[in-house]
């Protein structure tokens, strides 16, 4: 394992130190691992808090800023944050209108956010939660951990953030978040595993001719291993899985997301195939993103997330946003 780090134990702190140096518009508490907007909470605005394990950058700290999150709580690599962080962040961004927790559906994230939310509620802070679970590769039932939250997290954070910025009350902000999640589906593919600094070696081994289909964002293997194939065929597998679960038509917002180690030129090749697939089914790509947004350290591969847009969601997507990783309109 070769990584640009000073040591496995200091990666998260060192990266937060770098984040602080690069983004004076953020307030970064390196010791407590809380990233907020430098301005502090705005009176009467719903606060948005997200968080999760590190290793998915720019998620979530890269999405703190005007029109999106108010706070992000990075945990250790691939380990959800602890309640203390979440409680402190919740209090820090509470402008009196309540706070929305945006939680990716993993047992650890859910439990830690739940504990924090309970304690915040006991302290009189109104907290609502949106659970993101867009990954169609995973079976969803009462008797499983349910679907993972992946690429749709970015959509939920952007769109709920825009609504909150406009001054909407907590229940509306939560409900638009839930709506975005309900309209979004994702599927991920790995060409290689990732290596966490503490494990020091890849979480799984893929042969020269093998890929993993249906991977998550924590270096876990996917549902099945498959032979390497041209981009067109791999994209078809991913899009078929999405299309079967949520028939694709009308206006869509599409994210072709790199897992961290994939060159942008390949992501554009993938995007071309996604566009062709949607075109054949009469769906329209009306908004899109191509790049590394919800990553898995150095993993090579991609995920595709599709959200079926409404006019209102499109308007909220287009609203100004100013964060380290997503910016337009100001």
């Amino acid at each position, binding site marked *: 394992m070769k990584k640009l780090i000073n040591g496995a134990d200091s990666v998260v702190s060192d990266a937060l130190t770098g984040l602080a140096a690069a983004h004076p518009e953020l307030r970064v508490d390196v010791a407590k691992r809380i990233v907020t907007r430098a301005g502090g909470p705005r009176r009467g605005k719903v606060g948005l808090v997200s968080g999760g394990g590190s290793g998915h950058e720019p998620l979530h700290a890269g999405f703190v800023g005007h029109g999106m999150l108010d706070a992000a709580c990075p945990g250790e690599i691939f380990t959800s944050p602890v309640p203390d962080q979440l409680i402190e962040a919740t209090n820090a961004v509470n402008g009196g209108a309540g706070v929305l927790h945006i939680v990716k559906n993993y047992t650890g994230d859910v439990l830690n956010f739940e504990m924090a939310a309970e304690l915040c509620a006991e302290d009189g802070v109104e907290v609502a939660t949106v659970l993101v679970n867009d990954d169609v590769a995973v079976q969803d039932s009462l008797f499983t951990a349910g679907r993972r939250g992946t690429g749709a997290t970015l959509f939920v954070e952007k769109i709920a953030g825009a609504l909150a910025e406009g001054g909407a009350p907590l229940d509306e902000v939560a409900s638009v978040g839930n709506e975005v999640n309900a309209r979004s589906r994702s599927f991920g593919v790995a060409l290689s595993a990732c290596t966490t600094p503490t494990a020091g070696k890849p979480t799984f081994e893929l042969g020269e001719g093998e890929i993993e289909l249906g991977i*998550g964002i*924590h270096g876990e293997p996917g549902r099945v291993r498959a032979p390497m194939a041209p981009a067109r065929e791999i994209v078809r597998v991913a899009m078929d899985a999405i299309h079967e679960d949520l028939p694709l038509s009308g206006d869509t917002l599409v994210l072709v997301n790199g897992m961290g180690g994939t060159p942008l030129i390949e992501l554009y090749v993938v995007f071309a195939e996604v566009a062709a697939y949607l075109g054949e089914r009469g769906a329209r790509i009306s908004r899109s993103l191509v790049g590394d947004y919800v990553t898995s350290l150095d993993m090579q591969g991609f995920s595709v997330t599709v959200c079926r847009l409404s006019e209102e969601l499109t308007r909220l997507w287009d609203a100004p946003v100013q964060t380290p990783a997503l910016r337009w309109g100001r």
Partner: protein
Amino acid sequence: MDTAFFVAWIEEIAHVIADQRDHLTKLDAAIGDADHGANLDRGFSAAREALASADPPPATPGDVLTLTGTTLIRKVGGASGPLYGSAFRQMGKTLGDAPEVTPAALAMALEAGLAVVQRLGAAEEGDKTMVDALAPAIRTLTAALEDTPADGSYGPVLEDAARAAAEGAHATIPLLARKGRASYLGPRSIGHEDPGAASTALILAALSTTAAATAAK
């Protein structure tokens, strides 16, 4: 079992988890996200330090377990942090402020800890989680209590419980995971030992080790 016994137990857990850190991480790499060893090592070494530096020091076995649980919740994160943390806190609460704990009281506390894990995580036995090590250990303990020797020596009983936990962990290998990250793998989760069950077995082995060491004094 007194306060010192419980402090010794947590110290022994911290020791054995540090020792088995890479092994636990390897288990988690196979069907999870390769952090279980680091998570628990961070948590239990923090718990050991918290106990050592607590001022005033924990006065009862209940205090020891409550502080341990709180520390785990504050330091671990992930799934195992809230689950183990809440379990230890619940055990502490259950023990109340009794200065001495009988094997029967310990069994009841463990039972209460298991109940919290199941309430939070909704896992049943057979779902390939820490529950699969904890539940049989408690069953063994409870059953054995009925014929604890009159001299009150609980060593062999805890040894049996530890063995049951280890067997329970081992028995997760052929299971298909239905909770936690391993469940994402579907049938591919089969053939691997659950890391949380393995760490639970280590925690119960530490209990038995601590009892043996105490008895030897």
